[in-house]
């Protein structure tokens, strides 16, 4: 396949396939959770489960002081790369154009220098997180193949995006093809891995907060 | 003549730290046979010494605390009321040696209570009601101490 043909395929059919797998996968996995249901609580409530659940969905994003002191690297690096991913994904002008094409929505972008710096910081944070995963006793013990695979498919779009923007190494067309392919890889891997946490953490936090709120505890 | 707990407690409250200790020791000595741990015996000898140094008392307290930990009924284990009697004697010894002000109600009062508990434990095993008599013996013991 020639360069332009490959790019057309990556931007067209491949993206459609990846999107279908992604959406179907996410829906199936969420369905698999919800279909199990949970038994109603017959104990007398002290507080509101719903209020507790919703509260924890947001409040759990703020670590308590002791945890912040004890697990500083984990939390700080984690926040940096998560924020970085969102900023580059949502506020880079070419990405916003893509959203406009597909969803009909549009919003202001951030200057490219900001996006560029964010990308670099995010990549550094992701590298640091990998080192931590390998070097820290608990991380090393807990980690499985999937953790490293997910790390790879997460950093690839950042790196390939940076290379594509700066036109380093290959032709611009090749670089953009590789970048889009890396995103499609992420999308396809997403529903089968812990990346699902992006959606399911809302349920998990809600259940946690609801069970605690029922008893009158803020979790 | 002390005839009830109100009077008993009132007398105890009037005692200073050293006197509470010496009174408490007498209560413990009355139930000492219920406990088989030598550390309690030795500690009570130290505590009975009116001129015992603070260090000696602190050491005695430490050894008695260790003894108490060893003889308490562990959660979920099969309870043994004979052993519990010894546990309560050890607790009485702790109270006797604890500086005044640290235990609500005072050291001597807590010691007296624990001694009574020791007799009650014993009576659970034997089936007799000897626990009741202990408080009356304590009134007599305290009266004797006050008169000495």
């Amino acid at each position: 396949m020639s360069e332009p043909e490959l790019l057309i395929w990556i931007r067209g059919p491949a993206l459609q396939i990846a999107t279908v797998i992604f959406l179907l996968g996410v829906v199936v996995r969420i369905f698999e959770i919800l279909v199990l249901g949970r038994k109603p609580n017959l104990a007398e409530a002290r507080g509101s489960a719903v209020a507790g659940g919703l509260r924890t969905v947001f409040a759990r994003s703020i670590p308590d002081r002791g945890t912040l002191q004890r697990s500083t690297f984990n939390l700080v690096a984690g926040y940096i790369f998560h924020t970085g991913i969102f900023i580059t994904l949502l506020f880079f002008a070419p990405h916003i154009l893509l959203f406009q094409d597909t969803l009909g929505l549009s919003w202001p972008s951030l200057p490219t220098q900001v996006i560029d710096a964010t990308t670099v910081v995010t990549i550094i944070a992701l590298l640091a997180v990998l080192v931590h995963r390998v070097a820290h006793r608990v991380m090393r013990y807990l980690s499985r193949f999937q953790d490293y695979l997910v790390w790879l498919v997460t950093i690839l779009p950042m790196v390939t995006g940076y290379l594509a923007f700066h036109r380093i190494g290959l032709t611009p067309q090749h670089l953009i093809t590789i970048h889009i392919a890396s995103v499609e890889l992420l999308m396809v891997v997403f529903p089968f891995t812990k990346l699902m946490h992006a959606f399911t953490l809302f349920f998990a936090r809600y259940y946690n907060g609801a069970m605690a709120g029922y008893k009158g505890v803020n979790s | 003549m002390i005839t009830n707990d109100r009077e008993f407690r009132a007398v105890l409250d009037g005692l200073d730290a050293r006197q509470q200790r010496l009174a408490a020791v007498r209560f413990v000595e009355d139930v000492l046979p219920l406990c088989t741990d030598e550390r309690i015996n030795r500690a009570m000898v130290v505590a009975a010494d009116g001129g015992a140094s603070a260090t000696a008392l602190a050491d005695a307290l430490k050894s008695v605390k260790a003894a108490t930990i060893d003889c308490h009924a562990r959660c979920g284990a099969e309870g043994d009321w004979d052993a519990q009697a010894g546990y309560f004697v050890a607790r009485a010894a702790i109270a006797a040696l604890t500086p005044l002000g640290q235990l609500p109600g005072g050291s001597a009062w807590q010691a007296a209570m624990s001694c009574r508990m020791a007799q009650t434990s014993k009576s659970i095993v034997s089936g007799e009601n000897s626990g009741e008599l202990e408080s009356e013996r304590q009134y007599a013991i305290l009266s004797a101490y006050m008169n000495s």
Partner: protein
Amino acid sequence: MTASLERGLHAFKEQIDAPVASFFTSCVRCGLCAEACLFFTETGDPSYTPIHKLEPLRRVWKQEYTFWGRLAKAVGLSKPVTDTELAQWETLVYDSCTLCGRCSMVCPVGNDIAYMIRRMREGMAAAGHAPEGLIGATTRAVTIGSPMGVKLPALLAQIGHTEKDIGMKIPVDVAGADYMLLLSSMEIMNFPEFIGAVAKIFSKAGVSWTISSEAFEATNSGIQIGVSEIAAQLVQRIVDAAEKLKVKSVISPECGHAYMAIRWEGPNLIGKPYNFKVVHILELLDDLRKQGRLKTSGKETQRLTYHDPCQIARRGGVVDQPRNLINMVAENFVEMPETGTMNWCCGAGGGVSANERADELRLAAFKRKKKQLDVVRPDALVSACSNCRIQLEDGLEENNMDIPVLSLTETIAEHLVDD
């Protein structure tokens, strides 16, 4: 596959609900739960990472309730959970976890890990992999009525002794009383002065109460070992007695897991709501305080701090009440550096102290509490759970720390106004 392994795996499957599935799906292996668990922080052993304690349950979830997991299992590509593995996990699930729930407060994706451990114990017990000490306790609880074998005559003897000492009758089997008090075996055996303290307070406050000779035991060994049928049986005894005596409310004494069992798990275990209320003794005392029925005099001048029993505070919701009560009788009360729902576990609850094999680990875990105490430097330590009390005393003694441990209820009783 042996019959018992099959029972265990079946129990695992039954225990997996939507929350459990959402938790396993969301875990990103960040390791934050380890830093929240005193068994890890005080030993540095990564196998005590809370989420790791659930590994067999996670695999069952994956193989039974996820598309790819089921597919992999069907084509023989998945790793089945074996009996050996469950045997290996026994110490992780029972020795190194008190169900304290601190991990559940810290997990960034919101996993309630303690909730899952509680459920995993159902499978472990069904598979025959629960600690000996707990099995004995549970058997005694069912056959004798108390995990420590405390029979009615023994309780009556303690009651008799108490009556003599405080000079008032202790109501037993009084129908129509407002409150029915439960007692834990630990209190009856190790801290029977609790009974007298409660009696004095209730007398002064004009509380109508009773103890039931048919159901006086608060401790629920079924919860600790993880056998819901037994836990339900033990709760039903209490329900039957409460209904027979037509009381309005049942009081859970100073024991952490007892409160969790009767207040929060109880109705769900027996499958129907109660027609009486359940309060922790501290809740009742605080209510009396608010109503002006609890009159105390004098204050402790020594520097006091409070240890929150996990099942009462973090997992139970009784957080403010003990503080209100302590402030009534103390002028020098200082909080621990991490307190309330974020306080650290004593290390002995949830069946750990009933398990001799876990002794060394339990005392190592205590070091977390020691570190808190080293910062606060109190003259005395107040708490509201008999098991915490014994563990605290044990740990303090082991570490040569001279700090008396006081019961909150008993301290309140000591300060009651005399008429």
